[in-house]
């Protein structure tokens, strides 16, 4: 492992302008057990729609945590939007995260604030002027079909609606990357499809979309690039693939 680390430090990874996410020989090991990710190398280009699939324990969650700079790799280099995450200082992490719109399985909305406030929160963080915020939030809510529910609290909404609010929050600052962690995991098939259609629309407008999912039906139907992980290693990477059944 030491040799790998030395190699990855010594070799400077060059990134062309099309590449938005680059993993170069990334290893993430926890204090016990086998590494969660073991020598992952992948490149995602601007405007791509990518599914990352794999069973529990395949390393999907670790990959997302690394992308969000919640964890640091044990070895290897991660470059996102031209920024080397290995060298990113802690105080720069908030600014970095603003370039990634994140959508979680459990929505992660601020329960004590209404729909408008939840979406506006992302704009407040980047200190958007109030006048612009008053235009941007309603237009983003319209995009996800929730313009009329801006006063509702998260608990008054269905699962599908809550996920749309989360998506609106992820989109409102127009980040170049949308990262979704099991976005349909808590939704019925109808809502799942609606959310995926929204992702597709966003992707068509030029945003890079990375979706981590278990949903075989959706992956098979959408015919996008599919990266399959198993025990921390990439087992397949197909341009217009389907769900890789590991059994």
């Amino acid at each position, binding site marked *: 492992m030491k040799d790998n680390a030395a190699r990855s430090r010594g070799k400077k990874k060059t990134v062309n302008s099309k590449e938005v996410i680059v993993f170069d020989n990334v290893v993430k090991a926890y204090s016990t057990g086998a590494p969660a990710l073991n020598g992952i190398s992948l490149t995602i280009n601007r405007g791509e729609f990518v599914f990352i699939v794999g069973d529990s324990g395949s390393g999907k969650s670790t990959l997302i945590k690394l992308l969000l700079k919640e964890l640091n790799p044990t070895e290897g280099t991660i470059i996102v939007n031209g920024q080397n995450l290995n060298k990113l200082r802690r105080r720069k992490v*908030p600014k*970095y995260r603003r370039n990634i719109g*994140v959508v*979680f399985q459990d929505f*992660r909305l*601020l329960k*004590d604030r209404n729909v408008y406030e939840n979406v506006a*929160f992302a704009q407040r963080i980047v*200190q958007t002027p109030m006048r612009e915020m008053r235009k941007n939030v309603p237009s983003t809510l319209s995009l996800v079909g929730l313009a009329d529910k801006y006063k509702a609290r998260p608990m008054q909404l269905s699962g599908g609606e809550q996920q749309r609010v989360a998506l609106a*929050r992820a989109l409102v600052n127009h980040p170049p990357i949308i990262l979704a962690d099991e976005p349909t995991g808590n939704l019925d098939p109808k809502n799942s499809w609606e959310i995926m259609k929204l992702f597709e629309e966003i992707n068509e407008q030029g945003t890079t979309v990375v979706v981590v999912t278990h949903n075989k039906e959706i992956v098979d139907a959408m015919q996008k690039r599919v990266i399959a992980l198993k025990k921390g290693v990439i087992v397949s990477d197909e341009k217009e693939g389907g769900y890789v059944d590991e059994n």
Partner: protein
Amino acid sequence: MRISTLFYVFRQGVRNIFRNKWFSLASVATMSICLFLFGLFFAVIVNFQNIVKAAQEGVSIVVFFDYGIEDSRIAEIGDLLDAREEVSDFVYVSPEEAWDGFKGDYLGDSGLELTENPLADSANYQVYMSDVSKQAELVEFLESVDGIRSVMRSELVASTLTGFNSLVAYVSMGIIILLLVVSVFLISNTITVGISVRKEEIGIMKYVGATDFFVRSPFVIEGILIGFVGALIPLVLVYYVYHAVIDYITIKFSVLSGLLAFMPVEELFKSLVPVCVIMGVGIGFLGSFITVRKHLRV
């Protein structure tokens, strides 16, 4: 930083108080109880010190002059006393005043018949001290001054009062430190419980790209406001309790009115208000600042 962001952060802090009203109430109650106990104790200590100080100021030393001393020399000794820091006041007592005083105290009406003053050489200065612990030093100095025949003093009273004053100071410091430690422990526990519930909220903010300042500020403002209210409530309570207790003691123990020199409530509050407010706001600020920090590493 935009002004609108500062307003937003402040508004969120105020809203947090109402959104988490049970937590806010628990924090205010804990803070109030601690500061109420502190306020009561502070009042007791300050009054003790006031009473001791009043007793100290009543202790005088008497300076007798040489026989046949010139008036100008008496005035010079007066100037020397005036220059001493530990002297709070001194009064010249002429032989006539000394004799009148003696007659009044001991002879009553029978003294009127005496026409000659047997205390002709008893002109003196009655010297009052601001710090009785320096009595011995002052006496030593006065005994070395030309024109002074003798110096009368009460060493026992001085040493007892000095000892009592030190005892009160040590005991009060100990109890105040103990109360502060208990307060900080109770309040930080309350804040920890309150913030643990909102750990998820802090995590969400961090994932969306909020800076530590943006996440922490509403919590800190909430802590400061809770601390401020938590300081005002006990101050109001202490004000009324103090009044009631002083009234009760003054009426029930009127015999001791000469001994018990209570500090007026306005005088007490001149120091208690800033101390309590600084403590409340300080504990609220530090408690929230430190506790939120634990959850910011997301």
